[in-house]
């Protein structure tokens, strides 16, 4: 599992996030309205995970740990 919620209620992505994480991330973000996402510690994202982030547009703590995503998504 690479998607967690920490003590302050922020959702944190850690390490490599494969396709399965997409569903988890969706649920975590849905559970808390006004959710906050910290993706500084993930190393790479699957498209599906990125898709969730783009669709839900949570408040972000960045930059994204995946360098490709960090470079091309401002």
């Amino acid at each position: 599992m690479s998607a967690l919620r920490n003590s302050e209620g922020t959702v944190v992505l850690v390490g490599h996030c494969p396709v399965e994480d997409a569903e988890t991330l969706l649920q975590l973000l849905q559970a808390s309205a006004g959710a906050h996402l910290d993706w500084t510690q993930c190393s790479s994202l699957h498209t599906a995970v990125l898709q969730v982030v783009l669709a839900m547009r949570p408040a972000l703590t960045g930059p994204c740990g995946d360098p490709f995503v960090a470079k091309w998504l401002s």
Partner: protein
Amino acid sequence: MNTLQEQFTAEARELVQQALEDLIALEREGSAGERIDRVFRAFHTLKGSAGILDLPVMGLTMHAAEDVLAAIQTGGLELTPQVIDCALACLDLVSEWVDSFASHGSFPSDAAEAGVAVTAQLRGLLVGDELKPNLSVSSANLTSEHALPQWVAPLIDVARGRIGQKRGTKFVALSYEPRADCFFHGDDPLQTMRKVPNLCALHIEAVRPWPPLPELDPYSCNLRFQCIAAASRSELAGIFRLVPDQVRMVDIPASALIREGETGDDSRLVLVCSIVEEQLRMLRSATDREDFSGRVGSAARAAMNALRYGSRVSLSDEIERARDIALSLLEATPLLAALEKALALLGRTERVPSGSAPEPKPQPSDRAGSRSLRVDEGKIDALGNLAGELIVLKNALAYLAKRVEDESVGQDLSRAVKREADAMERLSAELHAAILQLRLVPISQVFRRFPRLVRDMAQRLDKKVTLVMQGETTEADKTIVDRLFDPLLHLVRNALDHGIESSEERRSAGKPEIGTITMRASPAGRRFIVEVSDDGRGIDPNNIRLKAAERKLLPAEELAAMPDEQAMDLIFSAGFSTTQQVSDISGRGVGMDVVRTSVQQIEGRVSLTSTVGLGTAVRLELPANIAMSQVMVVEAGGQLFGIPMDAVTETIRLAPDRISQIKNNTGFVLRDRIVPICALSGLMNLADAPRSDSAAKLLVVTEVGGKIAALEIDAIHDRLEVVLKPMQGLLSGARGYAGTTLLGNGRVLLVLDLKEVLP
């Protein structure tokens, strides 16, 4: 039209004309030599001009023509009549477009259609030729950003910032829209995008609007990826080989990425870097040492200039120092090092490919080109009129000099004045002669229009004819040369229509199958000769006698007694025509009499000789220079008019008591003759200036065709020696005018034909 448009029109017309001539000549001579190069260059230049004026239809059509010409040059395509026809048709179309552009500022509405058709025709000639890939005329190939798909434009803006100004790199825009179920196939589109080399811009967006969150399916892909990469299509095709149906690619021309309007420091920096980089490459591509100091010196200068432009003065100074060291050591390395250092400090490094450039091509021989100016004809006319005025002035001065002599103001002064008057005389004569020289043009100017006409007409008449031109460098006044076109055209038509026989006739007569029409010009003192001859069936003088008798031109006995040459001359009689058939070429009613009249109008003579079975020759003898006319400028009804001096007897200021009423007219007695007075303003339908009846009248007494009359005018201005231009265009039917001339101040003066003006 603005200057640029005028320049385009003038240049395009010249290029088309020259290319037309060259193509006709090429048909005769084959494709070796300068001509084919010239035609290629014509299309090439026209293509470039179309680019400048933003006329893509013309650009594409010219590109196709250029490719055809290139194929001919390299021998890949044979120069057949079909190819020539195609090229001529293309030039005709361009000619039409340019005329439309000149009159309306745009091409005709069917230009795109016509252009596509001609382009297809031209490219059709190249089928099977591998020199250039088939350029479809779709808008995707126009090198304008507006032709790129909508989604590319925003990407380009991003890309520009990142790529700087790389030269010669190919860019491709790519749009990848994965299938919604791609995740179930194990696809990770984002991962695929990471593999794209040299990514310059990437944009990720939703294909369809995101559904409300409860309905969001994270495993249905709703993303689209768009990017620009500095890579080839094949590279990209390889990366996306598993999903080719989900990917679209578009080539981006390098020009679309070079943007105008940026004034930021960033773009300046990019520009400076690219210049400095280029100097490194240029220095490294040296092939020999001969140009060492030039190469090093210019590279340094370009880099220094660019650095100063980018406000990096200290870097510029370093380059200067490095250059001095390099030049003294005769070694480029110090400069190379300094340039690389400057680049690094500017924030970029560049890997420069090693390897030498190809051998320079052998030099063509340097022949001095002829230097000529294109000058407006009106300006030369104005100059001519000024020279004429100068002559009048000079005459006045000569007269004064004489008076000075007579009235004994002292020998010294008198001699001094005479000396200056003599000098003035010489100078004005020289100036006058020089101006007349300026007006001289070679006969080729009118001859050159004929090869195409002859070719077309011969084709239509299904006759084989070749046109030979000689003596084209013979020079004559431009007006005369221009006025030669119509009579020459008629003579040529006659020769084609009635003179040259059909191929079978010629064969059975033992003549070469191809008939020859010759146009020859030669100088003859202050006149020159133009002869149009053919080797056709000739004219039988007895035929002429018969026709003349039919038309009752002369009594039969006279005709019989007349020698053959005289009989031949009857051809020029009014209403004469040697054939009942009216071909569509010669038309009805334009007989040799019209030829004679038009030649006579330019003070020329025309005569004809012929031998049955051998051919006919028509000879025109013409003056090489136009006569200038003397004109008096007068004012009436608030306007200026010119009165030909040869009609003017004298000018009089007439006291009112000398004026009498004779029947319904006013008149006066001049040396026992009654002279009617007409107000010029009235004759020209202009309002009269209010005048008191007690004032003296200013009159110009004229005598025309035996009739004497006095024109009442308001003022007399100068006397001029001018070139009279006949009325043209819409006004050519207007009665009362002998022509127009251009005054020194640039205004047009109407010169009256008194025969028609006076009641």
